[in-house]
């Protein structure tokens, strides 16, 4: 368990946040400028905050009240930077071995061969970083952090510099990391889909303050918390693979409600987490007839939250979990949507993007 309490002023802007990161992936989620990187750098020791206390289990990394501030190299962290920051004068193999060389001899460490295999970087070992693609660099950076025998892994928007295809290439490795490596991970992101896929715990930040923290489904399903803006809002559901149909669709079971998705390469019985973006959901008061959409979830309105513009976010409790819908305020009025009112959420089959589907191990 990592416990962080930090207060730091940059001129007008103040970061004043406290959160706990239990084992698994804790995502610091918020827009750019919300103080995410400041917090991670404070944990890493690259920034000394005006005031605060940071402790990883029983190890105190920072306690300004007691005048304790460990130097970065004594904190035993693996930091995965947005830009990789591989050493250009060293080969991939030397980059991977760099941290292990400085780690205490008796520190519990990952085996080199296992990490290389986990990240699929075997063929790159004798190359130099200059000869790697963006995605390959990031995989090596993950391996380098992992092999330094860290007690905590920090990742500051490790996918932000990559294009969509490369993101899709790297995300599964973070999932494997979460599921196969015992080290807790503190992960900074402003992307709703990354959070939905990776987070065990979400810490939502806005203007330097924590506005919510808790389990991923809980935080992402709350319409009052839209750290990345209403545009990116989306709820996370848990569903089990029910069966594969002959027409190319896979049927999922979300709390008794069937959901149809284009064929997934997952065995029946497997639990998945699914993200439904709020702008992909249409609401209806009655069960719609004669509609091409396959996925219709009945539920009750939990909250209607008007946005700044003409839009509103409606939270609907369904048997499968909470769904967010982004509609206009005019529609919300016309449908007389209010807490307690019954409504149907209509989700187009294709609107559940494959990159938002990830293996969930009951974290939700």
């Amino acid at each position, binding site marked *: 368990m990592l416990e962080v309490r930090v207060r730091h002023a940059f001129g007008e802007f103040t970061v004043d946040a406290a959160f706990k990161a239990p084992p698994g992936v804790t995502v610091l989620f918020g827009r750019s400028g919300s103080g995410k990187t400041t917090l991670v750098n404070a944990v890493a020791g690259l920034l000394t905050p005006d005031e605060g206390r940071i402790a990883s289990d029983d190890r105190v990394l920072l306690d300004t009240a007691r005048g304790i501030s460990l130097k970065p*190299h004594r904190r035993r962290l693996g930091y995965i930077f947005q830009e990789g920051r591989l050493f250009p004068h060293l080969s991939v193999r030397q980059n991977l071995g760099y941290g292990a060389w400085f780690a205490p001899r008796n520190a519990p460490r990952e085996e080199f061969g296992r990490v290389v295999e986990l990240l699929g970087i075997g063929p790159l070992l004798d190359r*130099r970083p200059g000869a790697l693609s963006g995605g390959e660099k990031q995989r090596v950076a993950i391996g380098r952090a992992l092999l330094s025998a860290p007690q905590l892994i920090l990742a500051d928007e490790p996918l932000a510099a990559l294009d969509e295809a490369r993101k899709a290439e790297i995300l599964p490795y973070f999932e494997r990391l979460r599921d196969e490596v015992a080290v807790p991970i503190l992960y900074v992101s402003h992307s709703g889909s990354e959070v939905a896929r990776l987070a065990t715990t979400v810490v939502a930040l806005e203007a330097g303050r924590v506005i919510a923290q808790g389990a991923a489904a809980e935080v992402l399903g709350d319409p009052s918390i839209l750290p990345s803006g209403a545009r990116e809002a989306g709820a996370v559901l848990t569903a089990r693979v029910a069966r594969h149909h002959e027409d190319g669709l896979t049927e999922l079971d979300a709390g008794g409600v069937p959901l149809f998705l284009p064929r997934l390469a997952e065995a029946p019985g497997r639990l998945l987490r699914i993200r439904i973006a709020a702008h992909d959901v249409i609401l209806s008061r009655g069960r719609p007839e004669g509609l091409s959409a396959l996925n219709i979830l009945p539920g009750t309105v939990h909250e209607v939250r008007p946005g700044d513009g003409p839009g509103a976010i409606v939270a609907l409790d369904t048997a499968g979990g909470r769904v967010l819908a982004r509609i206009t305020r005019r529609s919300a009025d016309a449908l007389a949507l209010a807490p307690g009112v019954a409504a149907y959420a209509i989700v187009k089959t294709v609107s559940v993007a494959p990159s938002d589907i990830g293996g969930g191990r009951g974290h939700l």
Partner: protein
Amino acid sequence: MADWLGPEEWRAVALSLQVSLWATLASLPLGVFVAYALARWSFPGKQLLNGLVHLPLILPPVVTGYLLLLTLGTRGPVGSILADWGIVLAFRWTGAAVAASIMAFPLMVRAIRLSIEAIDPKLEQAGATLGASPVWVFATVTLPMALPGILAGSILAFAKAMGEFGATITFVSNIPGQTRTIPSAIYAFLQVPGGESSAMKLVIVSVVVAMSALLLSELVGRRIAARVGGA
């Protein structure tokens, strides 16, 4: 080839190489340290240090030589202490090396400083997060990445030391076999009738040594850059 240069010319060439090599190698650690301090640290008196390092570049060399004579001469404040320990610099080849290294120092520091400034401090931070102490970060990240600049600085300093004349002749005079380097020898040959051909030969040697040094630095520099670069 050996006959082409007379014994006196040979002595000047050998002495010049000896003086310049020592001047370069002995000042290199301090050069790297000062360059690092100027590139990475902020401390009171930084501009003063920067000015001091660059002073020999701007002052007339004769003035630098005279100041060296005043401080490091056997009766100077520093020189007298050194003399008590048995170290005499004035009118010795070691003094010539000191003069050459001081004259070459600004060029060396400048090249190394630029190469250190070109290294992204974020890479040094990455080293620290991986458990490397500041000394290890310097040894494993900063130093290897600054190698092209260190090499370029050394070659420049060596070439400058080979050509140093004003400060050398003022501080250690022009003693054959002791302090008569190539420039001093050329000057001496031109003072006597019939010395032009000897002077010309030394001029050719100077040009060849300078060109070889440049080519070598270019070659090695390119190799290192290919190894380090492209990140």
